[in-house]
């Protein structure tokens, strides 16, 4: 029972980060058909923002988190304005390649402007303490992760359900040109999609860097590839699917961590991804995807 609770905490805190990233990817994809390869670099910029805030002002934790989130949001919106607007409305391949190139350019920029080596981000040591809650050891970071993930998801859900702009986003995700007939402004919807995805990437960056204690130019890459595949597993374009996919991936990884024999541990990521490919073999359209999703 305690073991189960322990693993549940681990799975939610890890899967939650994937869920945030996957949700951001899915929102942008569902609105404009872009598979944004550069999403990981938004996360990386968020990480660098934390590093900068820590070494320059040594600010308290909430400020550091706010910096990561705000910078993620601004970078995502700027990325759309500068790089993706010229290819908006073109086929998926064109947009994907553009984002691939943007990602390459950003990584080279980080290497040159900051450093190719990891930069340490020292947070308040109290933050990495472990407390005992009902017989379960819970890291404060994990607890923060769970709270931040759940709050973010709840806020996004409220936004999408309760506000006119949120309803517009769901409409545009389903049929962009009919949404325009409603007078929904294409620019506003796309910009909002990027803002949300950047905000979520910022939250993910904060939680990720808080766990690892450092940031490097390629930091966002691996978690975002995993989040991508989580979104595909959930059903590409389905927002609840992306969140579900992220959590499933978290559970799979934590279980593998717990049960894989020592000799197999280096292959943990590979095994997790193979399991997901297996799930996709069984349901090619994803767990919550419709069988005809847009190509």
């Amino acid at each position, binding site marked *: 029972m305690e073991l189960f609770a322990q693993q549940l905490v681990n799975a939610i805190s890890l899967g939650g980060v994937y869920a945030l990233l996957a949700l951001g990817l899915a929102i942008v994809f569902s609105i404009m058909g872009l598979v944004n390869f550069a999403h990981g670099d938004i996360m990386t910029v968020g990480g660098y923002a934390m590093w900068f805030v820590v070494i320059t002002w040594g600010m308290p934790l909430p400020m550091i988190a706010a910096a990561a989130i705000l910078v993620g949001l601004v970078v995502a919106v700027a990325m759309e304005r500068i790089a993706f607007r010229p290819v908006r409305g073109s086929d998926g391949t064109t947009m994907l390649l553009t984002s691939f190139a943007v990602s390459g350019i950003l990584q080279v920029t980080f290497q040159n402007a900051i450093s190719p080596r990891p930069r340490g981000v020292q947070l308040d040591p109290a933050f990495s303490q472990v407390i005992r809650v009902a017989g379960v050891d819970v890291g404060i970071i994990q607890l923060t992760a769970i709270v931040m993930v759940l709050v973010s998801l709840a806020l996004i859900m409220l936004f999408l359900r309760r506000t006119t702009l949120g309803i517009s986003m*769901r*409409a545009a995700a389903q049929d962009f*040109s009919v949404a*325009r*007939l409603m*007078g929904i402004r294409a620019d506003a919807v796309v910009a909002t999609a990027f803002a949300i995805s950047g905000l979520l990437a910022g939250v993910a960056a904060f939680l990720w860097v808080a766990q690892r204690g450092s940031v490097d130019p390629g930091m966002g890459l691996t978690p975002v590839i995993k989040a991508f595949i989580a979104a595909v597993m959930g059903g590409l374009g389905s927002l609840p699917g992306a969140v579900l996919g992220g959590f499933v991936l978290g559970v799979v990884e934590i279980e593998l961590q717990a049960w894989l024999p020592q000799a197999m541990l280096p292959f943990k990521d590979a095994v997790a991804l193979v399991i997901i490919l297996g799930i996709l073999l069984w349901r090619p359209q994803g767990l919550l995807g419709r069988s005809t999703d847009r190509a």
Partner: protein
Amino acid sequence: MPLLSVDGLSVSYGGIRAVRGVSFSVEPGEIVAILGANGAGKSTTLNAVMGLVPKIAGSIRFDGQEIGTTRPERIVRLGMTLTPEGRHVFSNLSVDENLVLGAIPLRDRSRAEALRRRNFERFPVLAERRRQQAGTLSGGEQQMLAIARSLMSEPRLLLLDEPSLGLAPIVVDRIFDLVQDLRRDGVTVLLVEQNVDQTLSIADRGYVLASGELRLSGSARELRESSGIERAYLGIGAA
């Protein structure tokens, strides 16, 4: 002054001219029909008028203002909207949410509330299903929702693209009654249809398209009496 006047409109799709030099106009308070067979360019014409597909030539004036390059979201705010062919309600959204979106161009929220009430009076079935997902409605109900959604922006001119498509005859009758009601409420209607007889029985004037070109035009009575319509449909050419 006509509410909508289109002059020499040409649209091309992937190198093929779908609409060639089409001109027509709609006066305030009229019901004007555009008739033609499948692939005649009727929907393309409406989409171009709304700015959903780019035109390659011609001018489009709404209420005296040139809107040939205006974006659809602007055009809706000027007072013209389109209920697209095949309904296209947002199936994942509830009936209420669909109507909320329709009212986006309105600045006045209380006006939106009044319009919603008016729409629920007009379509009681929608009021019953307001919390239901639009995708779960029947075809006729979806068509009513699509029209109601368009009316939420209080258009002066409503473009209706094949509203009777795929509906049972009794539902089709209701839709045509509704179009007449709309005129009584002061909405001008440009109606694209394949259902010639019923359309000409409610329309004031009509235009007939074939292969992307205007073949015939005249009052509804003239069109009913002319034999040119069938010939235009068969692609033999205009009288």
